[in-house]
């Protein structure tokens, strides 16, 4: 029974949103300035899904600030969740699944931290968590659904039932989740914060509407006119967004649809270090990839230009 009333208090969440200015003005900031808007104790909803369009640059910039007592929520949590745990930044993880993928086996970090009770782990079904964000995006405290019924998952967060006043059917009342912050990476944004996403949108449109503060990185900052030429491609309206940073390869080495492929071999190296040294493998990785580089460009340089170019080439090939 772990859902916090703050997560579904739609009235308070709306008051927070009402208090924010919604200027149609420029929101371009540096990656570091965007990450600085996240405060200790925040619930951070992470965009993308698994190793697709993960806002890794924002996670990178966030962890460098040595934050504390965060909650990370995500539909399928990839190794950014492990980073948060090992870095001592994350007290609670909300997700439907954690790992990288079948070839990489169970997440040893998840096992270590959950089995020892060092992190609170709140599990929902994939749709269950999606509906939590959706309810918040719609500004309501719950949504009725047929999912999770009868399963052990109903007891994990403290799910309740609701009776349909027309049919008498009893459904799962999936509680809203209003995160403090949503972090999102997209292919294209303009200075006003309008975001366009190519390929699968994952749950990014919903978390942008659900969160009190929305931080975006974009592969490309385009002219407002280009957004307006194809307004029907805009997934996240500018007035929902607080800060936009221009970060090419902002998901790398995770994939960004149409822009670059993921790097499964890098994942394997990462997992091998964990198999050898446990959490120490992650700590070493963080030291090398997160804390040591002076900028995101230096972080990318650790991979090398030709590797980035090959990932981009595969990305194009897989979408044409």
């Amino acid at each position, binding site marked *: 029974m772990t859902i916090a009333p703050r997560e579904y208090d739609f009235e308070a969440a709306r008051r927070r949103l009402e208090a924010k200015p919604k200027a149609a003005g420029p929101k371009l900031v540096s990656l570091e300035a965007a990450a600085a808007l996240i405060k200790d104790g925040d619930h951070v909803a992470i965009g993308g*899904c*698994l*190793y*697709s369009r993960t806002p890794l640059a924002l996670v990178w910039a966030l962890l460098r600030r040595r934050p504390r007592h965060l909650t990370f929520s995500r*539909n*399928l949590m990839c190794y950014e969740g492990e980073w948060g745990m090992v870095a001592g930044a994350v007290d609670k993880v909300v*997700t*439907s*699944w*954690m*790992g990288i*993928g*079948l*070839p990489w086996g*169970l*997440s040893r970090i*998840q*096992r270590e931290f*959950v*089995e020892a*009770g060092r992190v609170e*782990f709140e*599990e*929902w*079904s*994939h*749709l*269950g968590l*999606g*509906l939590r*964000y*959706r309810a918040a995006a719609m500004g309501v405290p719950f949504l009725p659904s*047929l*999912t*999770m*019924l*009868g*399963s*052990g*998952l109903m007891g*994990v967060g403290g799910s309740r*039932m609701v009776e349909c006043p027309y049919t008498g*059917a*009893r*459904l*799962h009342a999936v509680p809203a989740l209003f995160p403090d912050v949503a972090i999102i990476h997209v292919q294209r944004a303009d200075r006003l914060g309008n975001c366009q996403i190519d*390929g*699968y*949108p*994952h*749950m990014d*449109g*919903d978390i942008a509407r659900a969160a009190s503060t929305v931080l975006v990185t974009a592969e490309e900052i385009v002219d407002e006119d280009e957004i307006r030429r194809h307004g029907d491609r805009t997934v996240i309206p500018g007035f929902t967004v607080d800060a936009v940073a221009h970060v090419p390869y902002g998901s790398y080495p995770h*994939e960004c*649809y*149409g822009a670059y*492929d*993921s790097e499964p071999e890098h994942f394997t190296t990462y997992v091998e270090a964990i198999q050898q040294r446990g959490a120490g493998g992650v700590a070493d990785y963080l030291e090398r990839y997160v804390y040591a580089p002076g900028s995101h460009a230096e972080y990318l340089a650790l991979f090398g230009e030709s590797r980035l170019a090959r990932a981009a080439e595969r990305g194009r090939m*897989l*979408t044409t």
Partner: protein
Amino acid sequence: MSVTASELLAVMGARELRDNTTVFTGVGAPMMASVLAQRSHAPGLTMMVEGGVIGPMWKPGELPISTNEMRAAYRAQALPGITDAFLLAQRGFFDVGFIGGAQIDRHGNLNTSAIGGYARPKVRLPGSGGANDIISLCREVMILTVHEKRRFTERVDFVTSPGYLEGGDARRRHGLLFGGVSRLITTLGIFGFDNEDHRMEVLALHPGCTLEQVREHTGFEVLVSPRLTTTKPPTDEELAILRMLDPARQFIG
């Protein structure tokens, strides 16, 4: 040709899929089975993949590892997003839900959450992902898994994804108005669930597999269908398609 466990599961799973239907397919073996069906007897099969991908045509040699990547979305007909994909399932658009292995019990309940107590488990598993949703929302559900005794247990430690729960009409009592597990396809045979108590029942054995092996690798008593049959071995055509799709044998072992 010798046949790997993964190939056997893919072939036996594929054969359970009918042409001109829709399948919501989970990652791993179900994906291989679905794409094999689509390339063989079921060209009119539409796949939905959990990442919000409708009707892709995967590229041989570029099969997806996850449900949320460009390989999974290759030449998709639609990309509605994850929540909306599952809502299509809730509305009733998927004839079949197809998910992979886990700890499973006699009533088809699945555990992918935790071995031992849930709060402080002995082994924390990855979690539901979309399995709970697929098993709750699709019109019928098929499960594909390696048949090992540690997986087949009297009662799962935790019900991540509800099969028939306590059996009988328990699904309906809990508000699960639709669907249910129709088939379990393992490396030993094909299983169903009897109509009343919904207990696991062996319907067919794969060539060379015996009831003794089933009993030996199952932690509870399995009913035996009075019409027990034997499946046909994978054909050369089926295996050739699988190997064309996965020339590096990344998925078929």
